[in-house]
């Protein structure tokens, strides 16, 4: 072991770095550059005109952008918290089950297999005001007479999107938290019970600290991929009605491909990248801290 060349790990990691540099880093640098130009796809010569921070200024003074930004953060906050809570609940329900746990676990993973675009499409179908399952059910049960315009009224559309997002990602939390619950030694819980803890105290001070790293793994995985909400929104409302469900990502896509204003879109894209990075680094640090807390070696 001792006589190894120090470069072995670097050598092993080299292919990964080369591919990522070529496909991610270099294009990102390019887009950073073009965010300082008035670049339009239709006018290639504009690629070489530098305009300083004008793109950024026009973004920052654009209320539509701030609405989209705020909405994105709001969606992520609501969705991630709900997913965490529901995932925890689901994991505990399944863990308590005495029979058929294997099949329950498989069912629980069901939404994970759905491509985000399929999630978007199926909820668009179910929330359709005319033929959707939700409205049909509500009307047949006599809860409401009129069709509820789920994807047409702005607050309802946001709710519908949140539901779709939560449905699709809760299972990641559930499955990882369940793994934590199953891996947990039983002695501390019994000890807590013998010492007279209430069920809530047992959960709060024994179970939860142990399960927390698993929840943060789920959070980290989710935050690696928060932008998958793009697919869902793109299909369900495409930012509508009148831009009321526009998220950062759909706004970037629209500016770049519909308006062909690449430079501006790249500047916006950098905000979305920073947002993703902020989420990931935050949860990654939490994960490391949680691991340290239960005495794990990193």
């Amino acid at each position, binding site marked *: *072991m001792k006589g190894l060349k120090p470069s*072995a*790990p*670097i050598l*092993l*990691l080299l292919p*990964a770095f080369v*591919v*990522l540099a*070529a*496909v*991610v880093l270099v294009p*990102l640098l390019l887009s950073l550059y*073009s965010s300082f130009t008035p670049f339009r796809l239709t006018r290639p010569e504009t690629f070489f005109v530098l305009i300083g921070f004008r793109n950024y200024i026009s973004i920052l003074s654009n209320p539509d952008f701030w609405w989209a930004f705020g909405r994105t953060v709001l969606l992520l906050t609501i969705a991630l918290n709900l997913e965490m809570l529901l995932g925890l609940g689901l994991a505990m329900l399944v863990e308590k089950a005495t029979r058929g746990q294997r099949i329950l*676990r*498989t069912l*629980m993973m069901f939404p994970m*297999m*759905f*491509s*985000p*675009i*399929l999630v978007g499409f199926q909820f668009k*179908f179910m929330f359709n005001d*005319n*033929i959707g*399952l939700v409205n049909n059910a509500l*009307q*047949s049960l006599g809860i409401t007479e009129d069709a509820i315009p789920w994807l047409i009224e702005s607050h309802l559309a946001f709710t519908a999107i949140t539901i779709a997002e939560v449905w699709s990602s809760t299972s990641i939390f559930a499955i990882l938290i369940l*793994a*934590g619950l199953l*891996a947990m030694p039983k002695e501390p819980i019994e000890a807590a019970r013998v010492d007279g803890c209430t069920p809530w105290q047992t959960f709060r001070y024994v179970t939860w600290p142990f399960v927390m*790293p*698993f929840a943060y*793994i789920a959070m980290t*995985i989710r*935050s*690696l*991929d928060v*932008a*998958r909400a*793009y*697919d869902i929104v793109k299909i369900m409302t495409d930012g509508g009605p009148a831009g009321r469900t526009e998220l950062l*990502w759909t706004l*970037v*896509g629209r500016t*770049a*491909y519909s308006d062909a204003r*690449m430079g501006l879109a790249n500047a916006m*894209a*950098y905000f*979305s*990248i920073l947002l993703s*990075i902020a*989420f*990931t680094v935050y949860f*990654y640090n939490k994960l490391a801290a949680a*691991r340290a807390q*239960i005495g*794990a070696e990193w």
Partner: protein
Amino acid sequence: MDENASARLIRRTLTVAHRVGLFLAMLVICLPGIWIVLSSLRPTVEIMAKPPVWIPQQLSFDAYVAMFSGIGKGGIPVLDYFRNSLIISVTSTVIAVAIGMAGGYAFARYRFRGKSGMFLGLMLTRTVPGIAMSLPLFFVYARLGIIDTHFGMILAYVALNIPFTIWLIDGFFRQVPKDLAEAAQIDGCTRWQAFCQVEFPLARPGIASAAIFAFLTCWNEFALASQLTRSVNSKTLPVGLLDYTAEFTIDWRGMCALAVVMIIPALTLTYIVQKHLVGGLTSGAVKG
């Protein structure tokens, strides 16, 4: 006596509540999928019926037959999309896993400076949202002339999958005790032989599930594919799904059928890997 009875009553109520809760949760999870399958088998008239028809009157595989019988009848070239999806997903998975194995092994078995930072850096490349990534890639690919080609998509998907593959494979190699490889080396194996003969076979189920996970990511990806593909040359199934939407109308039945076609491979593969997947993600959560 009375206390016993009430305690028993409480316990029984709790059990029933648990069952009901579990049932409701599973219903919410499964219902959308079941609804899609059901809708794909019903005639369009029934889907559109007002007031709704709850009990299917007639089921048929017409939508699937139409879908696979070519452009003229089904409306969209599903077979081409299916082939593109398969080629792109499989190739990029194989490459990503090969690269990921090298990287994961390095993270699991060596100590080197800046390891933690490097790991985080790798993960951060994955956080770049697909739509943000697609802008510069679109531009570069247009210049290189590899838009709407399999090669371009494969390259993008390899990069997309490397970070997560490394994370998973790192976890699986960590689960293989270090002592085994060391014992093999003491017995005269080279490091390479120890890897091939001892560590790789032990980590193989895990690596297989990393591969399936990478495959599913490619299979389901939309944000990049929607911008980097143009025609039947390279369009994948998720992009093809949009072919069923016209300006104001959507062929719900056809879409449902295509959705089912997309889900079935994903369903099968996920079922195979579920056990290993969780193990790989969580290894290192409690032990180092």
